[in-house]
């Protein structure tokens, strides 16, 4: 089997699929040309992410990592949510094949992009560097490989 049972579970029964109409922040990362796009919606109340939903165009692991990422950030304070790394997503899924690791990076970036959007909308200051997207580098990396 290409994927672990946990990955297949999140792929077959993705958690939190859909849109949040009055979202506090929305982030979209990836590129359709490369075969994966993730869009993440967060609802923030009193500094806590009370709801998180996603829409993903991509392979099995792209859908599974998005699903897992929403689970990980839900109920967490915003500052904590942005600290969730791609490694944490991978671990929570019981591992990913090496050539699918970029999906977890996309998931991490989708969360960050949604938070960034929330900060922007609410005039909250943040470190630009920390929220810069690395998607292009990942894509470049994959090209070189």
């Amino acid at each position, binding site marked *: 089997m290409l994927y672990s049972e946990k990955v297949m579970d999140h792929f077959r029964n993705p958690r939190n699929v859909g849109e949040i109409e009055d979202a506090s922040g929305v982030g979209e990362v990836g590129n359709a040309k490369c075969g994966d796009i993730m869009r993440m919606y967060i609802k923030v109340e009193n500094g806590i992410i009370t709801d998180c939903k996603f829409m993903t*165009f991509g392979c*099995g692991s792209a859908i599974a990592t998005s699903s897992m990422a929403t689970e990980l950030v839900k109920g967490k304070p915003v500052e904590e949510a942005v600290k969730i790394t791609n490694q944490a997503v991978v671990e929570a899924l019981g591992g990913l094949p090496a050539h699918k690791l970029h999906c977890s990076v996309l998931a991490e970036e989708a969360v960050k992009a949604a938070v960034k959007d929330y900060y922007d909308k609410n005039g909250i200051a943040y470190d630009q560097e920390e929220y810069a997207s690395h998607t292009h580098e990942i894509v470049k990396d994959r090209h070189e490989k």
Partner: protein
Amino acid sequence: MIYLDNAGTTKLDEKVLEAMTPYLLEEYGNASSLHSMGQKAREALEKAREQVAKCINAKPREVYFTSGGSEGDSQAIISACRLGERKGKKHIISSKIEHHAVLHTLEKLEKEGFEVTYLDVYDNGIVKVEDLKNAIREDTALVTIMFANNEIGTIQPVEEIGKICRERGILFHSDAVQAVGHIPVDVEKMNIDMLSIAGHKFHGPKGVGVLYARSNVLLTALIEGGAQERGKRGGTENVAGAIGLAEALNMATIEMEEINKKQLVLRDRLISELSKIPHSILNGDREKRLANNVNMCFEGIEGESLLLLLDDEGICASSGSACTSGSLDPSHVLLAIGRPHEVAHGSLRLTLSKYTTEEEIDKTIQIVPKVVEYLRKMSPVWDQLEKGVRKHVI
């Protein structure tokens, strides 16, 4: 399971297994041995060679058993190039939609200083004979163009290509892995100098193939060893495999018309029903395609997730998405016929066999649209298409 990945590989026919079994359990001698068991294996091997030769209208001594299609492609191309370079000919003509066994061999030769012209296949997936004529140069050593494409099933004008090559004195190789056993192949009539065949594409065993090489073509051995296969392919002969391939090819040749007739009906139903899915498109020419091939793109979704969900529903299929090809780019074949990257990622290949039933096709027609719709519902790309933020291309 509904198995619709027959361009990938096929089920071994039980009659083929029956023909092979004695040569695995009883007459297992080495075909190069002098004793009676060895000689019995030799006789059976030569009979298999004759059978194969008959099916493609070749002479038995022009049939070389190999390990499969990739070996045949590699050996044919390398042999032609070695012959060419002795005369200072270092130009090859091929197409943009060849199998990787051909493309990667050509890439290797390009690094050695050969020049390759890759013919366009336009939006229908078929080369133009005019383009071939224009591409021929004084130093053209080889034309290698596949008979039928493994992804989109399009059939190339092989007979016309063969005629031109013969007139111009250029060697012509055709990767016929998807064609042999499915459509008539006649190396004499079609002026083919070299042809690659794989046993497992027509209900024969895996790991055995044939390279046909016209008697005037001097092959370069890729595997050194004994004098097997007239010194052109070292290694103990895969006697049971060769017998299996020959038996399978013989059966496929006899049953060809009848099987194609049945498959055409099922294929055309699949195409017309799946085409009802909004923003879907058939890949490859509607008419000039193998009777068992359906290949479609569905906008807004990605192929790997489609395959995994179909597998959950009991359907084995294939896709040309980047994720399934193991690279960043989607299928080079779909890109060559002009599908944009994002559309090519959402491709689905369904390939039938003589075992495919009407009920299986009915079920597939019910399941595929549901899965496509489900994936579109969670796709941000589909959302953009629906909202008009992104423009539909198909």
